[in-house]
Every structure is written in structure tokens, then in C-alpha cells.
């Protein structure tokens, strides 16, 4: 993408800050007014100043990144822009004119459009139907002219470089493509200002690249884009300008050329953050986990893990790298006992664990941090206390016979909350009231805080802010040094590279390569993830 940056319109980088009073008044210089300007936005919620005098402007054709930790006030600000919340103070200007945005439909009418983290699509309708849904300009309001509609959507997609089949049902598309449908919907509605809320949270690195190309294309056509993220390298890659928010205030504005990840992290968190945790030396001892010729089927009955074998020793981290959907989920579920293998063998500490359920594995000393904490890891309507004993509730000291011991559970909760730095008013509030980072810390606290033989981490830091990532990485290293065998599955290649002692690359259900974690080459692993290594192996043989 770096070769494209030369062709960017220069206005995003070279102009005066938009708040400068004469920016729009010099007639001789052709200066476009910001497409959007938010001035001194303040929003109070009971007990919280969510937005404290935030000012932000976005120029036509600019990609403006809004960077901040979870809970910093990014979402509140965007809700105000989208008319979902009313500011207590401040003004919103579109093309230099002050406007009052009454609600989402008003925002859409003014050309503001939002692409949410959770897509607002109807899975059983086709791409074209989703995009045209609610469009009043279609000639016949009851019956859609499918042929014409499909053609229109296809052309629109082509203009932005993606070949989309308008007749495909949205439910059959991957998340990456669903996101493109959302973006296409925004374009179709003539959105001049597009807000993308953490658009890459659900995407693979490859999909992220493709979406970035689309965004750049949109910007080149004059659309203004607000890109919300807490991923530093992404922001540096895609943004023309970066505004950093912390605790409801703007703490800095940067252009990518004059900043780096450390600078941004420091702005965002308010202190020095070690982005890469020092993993130190590992001292592997006895074999804890053996996976031997393992095959696993997915829910549809397809064999998505084929003849996989590896060993993990106590005191080492085996990273499993791979693009999401290459069988990692099923592999992990088989290891932790949530899914029956269709063939092969799993051994934990010398015990045959092939057909054990989660409870038995837990008793043998297995802990598991699931990728989807809302689905598997937590009961959101439960208190932190109940969540912290979710896997131990039945055993002493948390229960005597069938009677639970509330006092013992509570004591454990208070201790774990303290030790793992879960930010919460008390152990009695429900897990659903915590931020994503704190929810994950809660899961980590439950799973790490016991005597362990094997720890399985599935996407342990997905969607978290840098502070929480640092914390979880440190705890992982600590567990390894205490002699726990660790399996780390992550679609974030950087995470695997930073933590693993050995790296296994998974591609189409098979482990195609194992590399040493300290000497592994990022490019090579990336290629292995993308191609399974056939070409690489051929290339190596030739050279």
C-alpha cells in the first residue's frame, strides 16, 4: 500500500489544522472546508464524562483514524455524530454549516453512514436485496427488478475493485465479504462520510489488506472516512491523520509519517507500554500433551482437521498460526474435550484423553481460554463471583455436597479480581457490565489462577486494547515459566511470533510446517499461512 500513498490528495497532511480561524476564509487559496467538523463535543453520563470537549475534523478524501482504548469515548462520539446520542455541548458542522442531527435516518439523509462491528444484514436475502432494502428510489416499491438490481450492484462493486455476486445470499458470505456488503450499502446510499467501527476486528490479515484497498479507493473518490480502531499498526498503515482519545479527551493528533507505534501507545494508554513482552528463555521439560494422527470433523461432518500430530512440553509455548477457518477451532475444541475426534489420539500427562469431556480434562489440569468469551467463556448475566467459579463450582471449597459455599466463592473472586487487575466496582456486578478487556481478564483470571498442566489459549487477545494485551501476554509468559505447557492459537501472526517457543502453521486442516519461535521469519510464516507452503518448498528446493 506504500506505493499508493504518493497519489493521495495532499490536503490531509499539509493543511493548517482545521480549527485555525482563517482556514476557510482565504479566497485566493483553494481550500476545501472540512467535510465534517465536530467542535468541542461534550457528553456527560451519570458519573462519567464520556466526551470532554472533543474536536475533530475530517476533510474530503481523508481517512481519519480515531484511536483509543476501549471505553475512551470513541463510540460515544460516533453515536453523537450518528444522532443516537445528543451532545451536552458542542457543535457539528457539515461542509462548514452547523447541523443538528436528529437521529440515524437524519444522519443517513445527510450522507453520514456507519459500518458497525456487528453487521446489520439480513442473512437470508441476497447481496443486492440487502443493499436495496429500504431504498425508496427503486421504481417499483413492491417487486424488485432483480436483473436490473443485480446489475447495478455488480457495477458498483466493480468500481471499487471487488467482484461481488449480487445474487448470493448474504448468510453464505464470509465475514470479510459481509463487511464489503455493508460498505457497498453505505456507498449506494451516497454516504460522503463513512464511519467504520473496528472494521478489522473480525477479519483475517488478508481480508484486512483487501478492505484497506477498498477504503483507499473510496478516499480517492472523495469520500471521507473515520476509521475507529485500537490497533496501532493498522492505523499507521491506513490513516492520513490520527486523533488519539483517552478518557474522553483528545490527547494528541498525529500524521503517520511523524509517529510510530510506541508513541501512539503511550498517548493512548497514558504511560509507557511494552508492546512486545520479553519472553525470555524457556526451559521445556517433560511432554505434557501429545496429539497423534488427530482428525476432527466440523458440525457439517467435513473433516477439517486431518492427521495432525504434535507434542507440547511443560514450560513451552507452542503457537499455532493460521488464517481463521483452517481447522484451528475444531482442533482446539477436540483438545479441550468439547468435540469428539473422528480419529487419532490425544494424551494429556500420559492419560488417554481422546474421549474425555471438558470436566475430566479440567480435573487433569487443563485450562482453556476460548476465542469467543461471550459464547463460551462467560455467563454475562452472572456476577463476577459466579463466573470465576464457573468451572469449579461443584468441588470443595466452593461446594460441600450439593450445597454451594457462597462465602468461599466470593473470597476467591475478590482475590482473583485483585490479582488479575479486573477493573470493577465489586465482585457482585454482572460480567455483562464490564468492558471487553476486563471481561477477558476475568476469563484469564479463572483459567490461569490454578495449578495447571496444560493451558490452551484461543485468540486470547482478540479485540483488546494494548494495555490488556500486554497484561495477558505477561501472565502467559509467567505461566510458561512456572512449568505449564501452553498451546496458543491466534490469527494475529504478531502475537504468535512474539510469544511462541515453537510455531506450527496450520493450513487446510493440516500442520504444514513447524518453526523455531525465535528464528522464524515473518514473511515465510505469512506465506505458509496463505499458501500452505507448496510454492515455498518448491522455491527452497530450487535454491
Amino acid at each position, binding site marked *: 500500500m506504500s506505493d499508493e500513498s504518493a497519489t493521495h490528495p495532499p490536503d490531509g497532511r499539509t493543511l493548517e489544522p482545521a480549527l485555525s480561524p482563517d482556514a476557510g476564509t482565504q479566497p485566493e487559496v483553494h481550500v476545501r472546508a472540512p467535510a465534517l467538523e465536530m467542535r468541542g463535543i461534550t457528553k456527560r453520563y451519570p458519573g462519567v464524562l464520556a466526551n470532554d470537549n472533543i474536536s475533530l475534523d475530517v476533510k474530503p478524501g481523508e481517512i481519519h483514524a480515531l484511536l483509543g482504548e476501549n471505553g475512551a469515548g470513541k463510540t460515544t462520539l460516533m453515536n453523537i455524530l450518528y444522532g443516537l446520542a445528543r451532545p451536552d455541548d458542542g457543535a457539528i458542522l457539515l461542509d462548514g454549516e452547523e447541523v443538528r442531527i436528529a437521529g440515524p435516518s437524519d444522519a443517513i439523509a445527510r450522507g453520514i453512514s456507519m459500518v458497525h462491528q456487528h453487521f446489520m444484514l439480513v442473512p437470508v436475502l441476497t447481496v443486492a436485496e440487502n443493499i436495496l432494502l429500504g431504498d425508496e428510489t427503486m421504481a417499483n416499491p413492491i417487486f424488485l427488478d432483480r436483473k436490473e438490481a443485480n446489475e447495478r450492484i455488480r457495477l458498483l462493486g466493480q468500481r471499487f475493485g471487488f467482484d461481488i455476486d449480487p445474487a448470493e445470499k448474504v448468510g453464505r458470505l464470509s465475514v470479510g465479504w459481509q463487511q464489503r456488503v455493508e460498505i457497498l450499502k453505505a456507498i449506494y446510499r451516497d454516504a460522503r462520510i463513512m464511519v467504520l467501527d473496528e472494521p478489522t476486528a473480525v477479519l483475517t490479515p488478508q481480508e484486512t489488506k483487501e478492505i484497506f484497498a477498498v477504503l483507499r479507493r473510496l478516499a480517492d473518490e472523495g469520500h471521507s472516512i473515520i476509521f475507529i480502531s485500537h490497533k496501532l499498526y493498522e492505523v499507521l498503515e491506513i490513516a492520513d491523520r490520527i486523533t488519539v482519545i483517552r478518557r474522553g479527551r483528545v490527547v494528541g493528533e498525529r500524521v503517520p509519517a511523524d509517529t510510530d507505534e510506541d508513541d501512539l501507545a503511550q498517548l493512548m494508554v497514558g504511560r509507557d507500554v511494552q508492546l512486545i513482552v520479553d519472553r525470555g528463555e524457556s526451559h521445556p521439560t517433560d511432554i505434557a500433551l501429545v496429539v497423534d494422527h488427530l482428525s476432527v470433523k466440523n458440525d457439517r461432518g467435513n473433516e477439517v482437521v486431518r492427521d495432525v500430530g504434535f507434542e507440547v512440553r511443560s514450560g513451552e509455548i507452542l503457537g499455532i498460526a493460521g488464517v481463521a477457518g483452517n481447522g484451528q477451532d475444531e482442533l482446539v475444541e477436540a483438545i479441550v474435550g468439547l468435540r469428539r475426534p473422528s480419529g487419532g489420539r490425544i494424551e494429556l500427562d500420559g492419560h488417554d484423553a481422546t474421549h474425555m469431556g*471438558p470436566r475430566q480434562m479440567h480435573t487433569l489440569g487443563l485450562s*482453556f481460554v476460548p476465542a469467543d468469551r461471550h459464547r463460551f467463556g462467560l*455467563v454475562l448475566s452472572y456476577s463476577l463471583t459466579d463466573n470465576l467459579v*464457573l468451572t469449579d463450582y*461443584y468441588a470443595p471449597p466452593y461446594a460441600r455436597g450439593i*450445597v454451594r459455599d457462597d462465602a468461599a466463592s466470593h473470597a476467591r473472586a475478590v482475590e482473583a479480581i485483585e490479582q488479575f487487575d479486573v477493573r470493577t466496582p465489586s465482585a457482585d456486578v454482572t460480567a455483562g457490565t464490564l468492558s471487553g478487556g476486563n471481561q477477558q481478564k476475568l476469563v484469564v483470571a479463572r483459567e490461569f489462577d490454578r495449578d495447571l498442566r496444560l493451558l490452551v489459549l484461543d485468540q486470547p487477545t482478540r479485540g483488546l486494547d494494548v494495555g490488556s494485551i500486554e497484561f495477558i501476554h505477561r501472565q502467559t509468559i509467567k505461566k510458561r515459566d512456572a512449568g505449564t505447557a501452553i498451546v496458543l492459537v491466534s490469527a494475529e501472526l504478531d502475537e504468535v511470533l512474539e510469544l511462541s517457543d515453537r510455531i506450527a502453521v496450520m493450513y487446510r486442516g493440516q500442520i504444514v510446517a513447524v518453526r523455531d519461535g525465535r528464528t522464524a521469519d515473518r514473511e515465510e510464516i505469512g506465506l505458509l499461512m496463505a499458501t500452505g507452503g507448496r510454492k515455498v518448498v518448491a522455491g527452497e528446493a530450487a535454491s
Partner: protein
Amino acid sequence: MIARAVRLLSLPLGAILLALVVGAIVMIASSPLVTGHFDVTLPLTTYWALIEGSLLSFNAIVDTIVNAAPLILVGLAVGLGFKAGLFNIGGQGQFLVGAVAAAGTGAALAGSPTAIAVPVALLAGMVAGALYGFIPGFLKAYTGAHEVVTTIMLNYVAIQIVSFLITGPLRAPGASFARSDDVGNAALPAVLNAGSGHPGHIGIFVPFLVVPLIWWLLFKTTAGFELRTVGANPDAALYAGMRPRRVIVLALTFGGMLAGLAGSIEILGVTGYMPAAYSTNIGFDAITVALLGRAHPVGILLGGLLLGAMRAGAGLMQIQAGIPVQMIDLLQGVILFFLAADVIVRRVFRVKAADVGVDELQTVTSSYAGKAPAG
């Protein structure tokens, strides 16, 4: 604690209040048919008669509890389902098979000593109800058959079972209509002599024992924790090593047992025999009770008492205000309507969804798109 209770109660209380308003409007609108002119005081007369007939005398209170007892027990059966993420509409059928089992056993033991006849007849009703709850539970857990569909169907089957047994093997010889024999010594002894209306049989104390027991099971035991976890998040339950399928079977079986107990108490304590054409609406009234009580045992106790009081006061209401007893069905229907359409209640009384938490309603609405549990 108190703040939480107020939050939990805001939705049911709002629904009751709105239902009373709707009832008042209906009464005023129809008052010309009774008095010849619009009578704006008619609702006050009516509601006062309801209160008088259900609360303001010893007899009235006994009558209220007699009416409330089966509602509370079947309400608990529905409520347990809600807690486990299940919508049990089969209270009706479970009540009926429990009733017919108790009637048959009671008639067979009519000559035995009460100390034997009563417990055995009650037990028979509970076992029958439990078996009848086990069927949809097993089907749900191991075949994925939806409990809403199976329990509704089993309600019709139960009616036919009752009709077959009472017109056939259990029919009292020489009776002028199809009915079972009197339960004789298996009848629940009357301990509160209310003089008129229903006798205050000993069975009316049962709900006051069962409610604390269910509360304890749900909130203090590991089994209750498992049940609530399966209801709140079946995937997390599986992950935590629980067995959702077993929990589903147990929740519906145990609920069936409570509904069967309610049927037994009704036969052994109130009617004394079972007619072939036994007609009841209790399965559906119990859904109102469970929703009114927010699926919480104490709430269900209160909800059952409220509906029981309305039934107990209906007679006096008809006499004093000239309002037909069907008014009670209308009020109850409107309460259920507002409970289901909770958005209306929240709008009128300005309570936020987050403050009241409507898990049991989510079970109702989402149960039509449910999936078979894994594990």
C-alpha cells in the same frame, strides 16, 4: 437488595396497574348495559368487591389461598423451565395426568387409613406428572424436538388420557355422569374451617413449603447453578463441564412433578373425585403467574396469590357490582398482554430495559427459534 427488588417488581406491577386501567375503561364503557347510564364509579365498586371477597375476612383469605395453591405450584413448574431456558407450556397436561393418577389411587385407597392413603395418592400424582414432564424433556434433549410443540401436543393427549380412564377403568359404577369414585380417606383433611366456599384443606400449605425449597435448590445448590447456567448460556455450561441435556430433562421432569402435585392437591383437597370432563385452564394461567413472578420462586408465590385472590373475589364482585366473573379472565389476559408487550409498560412508567432485565421473556420469544442442545 431493596433497590433490586423494586427494579424486578417494576414490570409486573406496571402491567397489573395498566390492566386495572384497561379493565376500568371496559367497565365504564359497558356500564349502560348494567345501570342504564355511564357509571364512572363502577370500577371502584368492582375492585373493592374483589378486595373484600379475597382479603377482608378469614374465609376470603382461605379461599384465596385455596385458589392460589395450584397456580403457584404449576407456576413454579413453568418458572423452572424459564430458568433453564425452556418454555414449558405443558403444565396443563402434567396437571391433568397428576390429577387423574391421584384420583385413581385415592379411589383405590379410599378405605385405607388417611396416613397411608394421602401420601400414596399424592406420590402417584407427582410420579405421573414427572413422567409426563420427562417425555418432552427427553425429546428436547436427545432429538431436538421443540418443547413448545411437544408440550402443547401432550396437553391434548392428556385430555384424552383422562377421558379414557374416567369413562373406562376408573369410572365410578352407578354414577350419573362419568366420574371417578370418591377418594374417601385419601381426601386432604380440612384444617381451616372456612364455613363457606372452599374448605381450607391441609394442601394449601404445600406451596409455602415448596417455594423456599425451590429457591434453595435454584440459588444455593450446584444443581440449581447448573440449571441457571444452561438457561443463561448453554455453550458456557458445556464449556464448564456441565451436561445441558441432563439439565433439560431434569428441569422438565421436576416441573412436571410439581404440576402433578398441584393436580393431586386439587383432586384430593377440593373436588374429591375426577370428572371425565374436568376442565381447567391452569397451564396457561400458570404462564401468567410465572411471568408475573419474573420466574423467581418468591415472585411466583406473589403472582399465584394475586391470581388466586382475583378468582376468590370474583363471586362477590359479581354479586355486589353486577360484573360477570369473566371480568377476571379479561384482567388476567390483559396482564399477560402487558407482560409480553413489556415495551409498553416500560414506556408508560419510564423504566429502562437494562434496569428490569427480561430474561424469561427472551425465553418466550426466542424459544420459537430454538436449537437442539449439544453435549
